[in-house]
């Protein structure tokens, strides 16, 4: 089994790579490959889209790789392969992002990526650090992750899903901030599972074994 971590020249791939490698080794989930090649993505059984940075810059960088998004889209939408987006990789699953400018997303899960606006002005933006998950819709990738478990967040924008059924978990930060979205064979985490110690590694290993 092959899991492709898509490298589109955005931020920290090393941490994600190491976390997926370790969990693949521990659970016998095959090989993890970091790639920018559409051909490799097309062959992969699972696809992970990480990403750090601003929405417009990440979108542009991804689309600068000829044929890469088309390969991801065909694997996920046409062939129903399991997909995980992390941070910006999750946000790009939305209809559009409003960071700096109005940028079209993949429109895989209806919604907008909007600035976090905590009701309490003392709350800082970015939302940075460990926050505890409130799970509203159970999901196989969250098996063994409990209500209240902590995950590591670092972001200023979040995914407001149009259909509440697509929001799997949120955290409280002066408002309800989306933590996980999911639909069909795709799931997206706003937090960094690769940096979230126990709960994060559990999510990674569950994803590697997920058969939607």
């Amino acid at each position, binding site marked *: 089994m092959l899991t492709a971590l898509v490298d589109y020249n955005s*931020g920290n791939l090393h941490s994600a790579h190491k976390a997926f490698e370790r969990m693949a080794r521990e659970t016998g989930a095959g090989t993890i490959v970091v790639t920018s090649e559409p051909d490799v993505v097309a062959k992969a059984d699972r696809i992970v889209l990480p990403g750090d940075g601003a929405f417009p810059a990440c979108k542009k960088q991804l689309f600068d790789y000829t044929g890469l998004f088309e390969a991801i889209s065909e694997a996920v939408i046409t062939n129903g392969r399991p997909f995980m987006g992390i941070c910006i990789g999750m946000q790009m699953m939305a209809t559009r992002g409003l960071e700096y400018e109005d940028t079209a997303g993949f429109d895989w899960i209806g919604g907008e990526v909007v600035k976090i606006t905590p009701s309490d002005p003392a709350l800082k933006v970015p939302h940075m650090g*460990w926050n505890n998950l409130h799970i509203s819709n159970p999901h196989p990738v969250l098996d063994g992750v409990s209500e209240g478990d902590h995950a590591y967040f*670092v972001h200023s924008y979040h995914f407001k899903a149009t259909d509440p059924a697509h929001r799997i978990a949120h955290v409280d930060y002066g408002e309800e901030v989306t933590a996980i979205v999911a639909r069909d064979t795709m799931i997206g985490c706003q937090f960094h599972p690769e940096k979230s110690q126990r709960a994060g590694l559990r999510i990674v290993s569950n994803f590697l074994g997920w058969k939607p």
Partner: protein
Amino acid sequence: MLKTRIIPCLDVADGRVVKGVNFVDLIDAGDPVESARAYDAAGADELCFLDIHATHENRGTMYDLATRTAEQCFMPLTIGGGVRTTEDVRNLLLAGADKVSFNSAAVADPDVIARAADRFGSQCIVCAIDAKTIAWDEDGTPTKWAIYTHGGRKPALDKDGHPMDAVEFAKLIESKGAGEILLTSMDRDGTRAGFNIAMTRTIADAVKIPVIASGGVGTLDHLVEGVTEGHASAVLAASIFHFGDYTIQEAKDYMASKGIPMRLT
């Protein structure tokens, strides 16, 4: 609810921890990766590596260190010291850092923060500010702080030749897109007399981005004060953890007992 972070900081030179680290059962206390693993197991919320030599030759060592640490630790890692360009940021991120901290380079050219934030996002761009008190009111409360660079050896001057004001600089680098400020009081660093609370609070209240309080921790009450009185989002300490005065868990339990939201598991 977002939790207050405790961040142990390791001073690294030529790939080795230089302030003593005194863990029980640690095979090699001078190896940063071993120290990182011990802090990961102890439940630290993040880790900070500071490259104190920050020479060009040392760069390769830091990349290697970031790589080896990321293989072992699944918590966020900030690396700072001698970071000058967006290429430095990219290389450290690729090696395994989660956040990269600018210091002197941002004072010399605040736009480097903007370039790095535009490219990699504010979430991974930290600006370290080292500041000293330069004015007090009649009660002796500090009221003004000036920035120093180059490991605290060089006073920074504004374009009029005056000492660069730490509060104004904090607001400036926030506007350039810094995601976090690591604020070190040079008056307090190494003294174990507690954070410079007036400075921490003034700057934390002046910006929207999180401020990490640093410099001067000697007791667990100091950590509490940094948050309750200094309004810091996170507290950084070195000696009290390295020398085994307190464990991370003891610090977290104590802060929680004072009503601060902490990640206890």
